[in-house]
């Protein structure tokens, strides 16, 4: 461990990444599966961004809309290239990319989220979320159907109440006639009052 007077600020080797990167074991002396590819992709993307930033207004003037984007894209690119160079120098850690980085649970959950994104608009918030919660909890917790459905629906109703009824966030209604439902309850309530 090299120690400079400012090591606590930069924490170049200090063990304090837990807060922002709990999944990353440290200190990182070996290259994780897929890390080199990621670093190269990042560098490549930064290069693309640099070009895109130049495209905004070129070297027109100091106050052009593209000036700050160009400087930042350049900073990204330099940092990404340095990172890539450092990463490539590290010895590979070994281990399979799929097992280490993308275990089955993560892949399944990502697929569920993707499906959620696609189904949300046509199907509506309530059915999509109910299916999502039931599927996810069943997959992860491996508990009985009764438990899964009960927990899912109870929490969904809670979330729906807070967001839709109290905060009037209009989630996509899809196939559920939400507007009519809520108006119905509103009418009931106002009748009860008068």
């Amino acid at each position: 461990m090299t120690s400079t007077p400012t090591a606590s600020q930069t924490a170049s080797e200090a063990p304090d990444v837990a807060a922002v990167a709990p999944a990353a074991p440290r200190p990182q002396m070996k290259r994780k599966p897929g890390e080199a590819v990621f670093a190269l992709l990042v560098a490549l993307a930064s290069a693309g961004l640099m070009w895109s930033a130049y495209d905004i207004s070129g070297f027109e003037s100091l106050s052009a809309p593209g000036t700050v984007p160009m400087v930042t894209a350049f900073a990204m690119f330099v940092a990404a290239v340095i990172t890539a160079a450092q990463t490539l120098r590290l010895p590979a850690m070994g281990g399979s990319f799929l097992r280490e980085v993308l275990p089955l649970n993560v892949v399944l959950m990502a697929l569920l989220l993707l499906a959620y994104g696609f189904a949300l608009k046509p199907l509506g918030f309530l059915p999509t979320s109910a299916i999502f919660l039931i599927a996810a909890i069943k997959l992860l917790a491996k508990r009985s159907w009764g438990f899964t459905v009960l927990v899912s629906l109870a929490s969904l109703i809670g979330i729906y109440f807070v967001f839709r009824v109290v905060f009037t966030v209009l989630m996509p209604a899809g196939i559920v006639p939400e507007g009519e439902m809520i108006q119905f309850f509103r009418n009931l309530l106002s009748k009860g009052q008068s």
Partner: protein
Amino acid sequence: MEMLSAFFMVFTHPQLLMLVGLGTLAGVYVGAIPGLSVTMAVSILISFTFSWDVHPAIALMIGIYMGGVYGGSRTAILLNIPGAPSAIATAMDGYPMAKRGEAGTAIGVTTVMSFFGGFIGIGVLALAAPFVSDFALGFQPRDYMLLAILGILLVGSLSGGSLVKGIFAGAFGIALGAVGMDPLTFTERFTFDLPVMRSGISFIAVMIGMFGVSEALAQLHHVDTVAVKQKISRIVPSFGTIRKHLPLSLQTSTIGVIIGALPGTGGDIAALMAYDHAKRVTRNPEREFGDGAIEGLVAPETANNAAVGGAFIPMMTLGIPGDAVTAIMIGALFIHGLNPGPMLMVDQPDMFWFIVGSLVVANFFMLIFGLTGIKIFTKIVEMPRAVLIPLILLLSIVGAYAVNNSITDVYWMLGFGVLGYFMRYYGYPLGPVILGVILSRLLDDNWRRAIISAKGDFGLFMQGIVTSPLSLVLFIAVIFIFVNQTPLWPMIKRRVFGRGKAAE
């Protein structure tokens, strides 16, 4: 005498007292849920309280504001998902504490310190509002720009593992903030000619994705581990603890008031700057920063609650909003027949003292609600992960949608969740990304304004900095921190030149 009766009005009217309390309680929960924001709650209240008198309406809004700013820390500590942008820094040291079962202590310290910071903010508002607002109004575009650069230098504090990756992440954040149609010139930036990109990327979507979804995905790696039992026997911090952090909390509260009083900057930037300040002045923390340092909780929480009082300063003295919430409150005052502006303090000083009184009451309620009901909150983290993770994911989706009622934001949020997952895994810090997004507009817009005002001449721009005392102080601060605290230059030298890599 009239001033006193206005100040005590909220204490003597049980209905008002109750409304402030109710608002504060609601605020704590609104703040704790990512995606539900105080801004949203207050703007809904405008229609809701339209037919009310002005006093109860304002009392309710103030309660929500105070509670909401504080509430963001709850989920930050317990789940590593900041409920509101101003709690981002709180997650850095709060979550490691919760992972050790010390969530109770963390929440206790946070609550007491928020209370303390809140009072400093209110105190400055009550005693020095005209002075502070004159000072804040004097900030020129170049000063805002220097302030943003000061903020960007925080990357050093937030980077954790690798500074180079931190710089990348910070720059990435600034670039993200620039995506879309530039509001000053209508030029499209980083849109790749896609219509969806035109309106930019919602900052909240990035935050929820990077912190919420990526955290949830990362936790899937060990879904079967039993959740840490939380010790909640000792919640109220000892007097010794409070006394020990008194000097720091005074400093960070001052940062909070000033940043809060500046139009255009609010609790989020204040909290991050305070965190950085704490990291710089704390010589020997009991635990490292990022590993559960108490100072890392004290600083942002005092600052963001002090910023509440700060935000009211320009609002009450000039009718200029200090942040998004006070902007809506100005609208509310208009609706209720008042004319917020420089004359409000002269024409209706009662209103000013009523607001100060309500803030004081809200601050007390925040302390009460903060120190009670912790048991229920900590139960959340003790839930089995297999249930908690899907709920976090769903809440993230709804939260991202709620900000702007837009499905596109949900897709952005999920995309950044996945990207954040990989960045997290490969050791790219996520804090600087959010920092970059927050500061992007402040830096970019004010840089351009400053240069345009100097007729596009860099020499004239520098001359402006050197001849204005305020700019000069900020400029020296930037140089000082850059050279002294961010060993960027020696580091690049050591890493790149040291190994004989060509650098020219």
